[in-house]
């Protein structure tokens, strides 16, 4: 791993984005594996914190790559990581959007779409598992995760309120 951090950031996120079917959340375990285990850019805890900051920020959750880039190489790193994550897939989206509507009823298109849904779902589920594992260091944090999951599933409450409650409970020193 002698390459410069910027090259590594760009190459890694560009590669990851092209495999990240299911969106940014499906790619979280792979980001974690590279950033923490392979490259040693940050600790488990720092990664979990960055996910929390990305969730706190408005906008698409993919913004976590901006934080990782910033952590590794400052503002330039933030921009390089973001462009790496979004650039190649935008070009793909641009090209595919042109032809996709034309094959709306084609059997191969229907099969591709039906086949990708379960894979993508399993990957997003893995993201949830990895994050809960990193965040839940004790029984209270585990309880917050469990209660949040139930409340968010059963009600239409704005998630921001749940984050506020979680933050206050953390502040109170229980976690």
């Amino acid at each position: 791993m002698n390459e410069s951090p910027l090259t590594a950031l760009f190459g890694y996120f560009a590669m990851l984005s092209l495999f990240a079917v299911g969106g940014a959340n499906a790619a979280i375990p792979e980001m974690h594996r590279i950033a923490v285990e392979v490259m040693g850019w940050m600790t488990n805890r720092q990664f979990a914190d960055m996910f929390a900051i990305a969730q706190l920020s408005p906008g698409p959750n993919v913004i976590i790559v901006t934080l990782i880039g910033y952590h590794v190489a400052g503002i330039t790193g933030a921009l390089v990581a973001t462009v790496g994550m979004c650039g190649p897939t935008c070009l793909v989206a641009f090209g595919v959007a042109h032809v996709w509507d034309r094959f709306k009823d084609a059997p191969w298109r229907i099969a591709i779409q039906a086949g990708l849904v379960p894979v993508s779902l399993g990957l997003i589920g893995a993201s949830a598992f990895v994050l809960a594992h990193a965040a839940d260091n004790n029984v209270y944090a585990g309880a917050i995760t469990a209660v949040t999951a139930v409340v968010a599933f059963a009600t239409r409450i704005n998630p921001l309120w749940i984050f506020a409650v979680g933050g206050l409970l953390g502040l109170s020193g229980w976690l």
Partner: protein
Amino acid sequence: MPNPEAAPGATIERPSLYELFKAFTIVSVSGFGGALPWARRMIVEQRRWMTTEEFNEAFALSQFLPGPNLVNFSVVFGLRFGGPFGAVVTLAGLMVPPLVIVIILGVLYERFGDLEVLSRMLSGITAAAAGLLIAVVAKMAAPMFLKQWNSAPVIAILAFAGVAIMHWPLPLVFAVLAPVSIGLAWFKR
């Protein structure tokens, strides 16, 4: 190059580039905890640029494509309603405001991240964020797992186990399971 055949709502006037940029900026800065609900609200309910069905189709395409779903969606939507320049402005509207906000937050975290207070607060929010993601997965999985069982839930469980339990690299899991899953879907038609 504009592509008039791609705008199905022919009665609706094509929004200007400025309107597209403004709409996606609003979606972006409102979208705490994910911007998808806000995008749908803006495009289907407020601006009425797309019907529910049109939105669902465009988003399905964005999900099918690799990479961040909403980023893809902004390109698909912008291209359809404003040509290549439309795609550029919707993407910019979606990404630039949160980019600035998150870098400011990142600077604050790097400077104060080791403070006990912020770190304790973040540990509570992280636990909640994990729960929120679990709820989203449950909502998405419910239709697939409650219908009659076929290969789809098995594929989903295999993908989950490969990445979460076995810690295999995501590209490997994807490269093995996706062709199998697409093949099964093909023969099930």
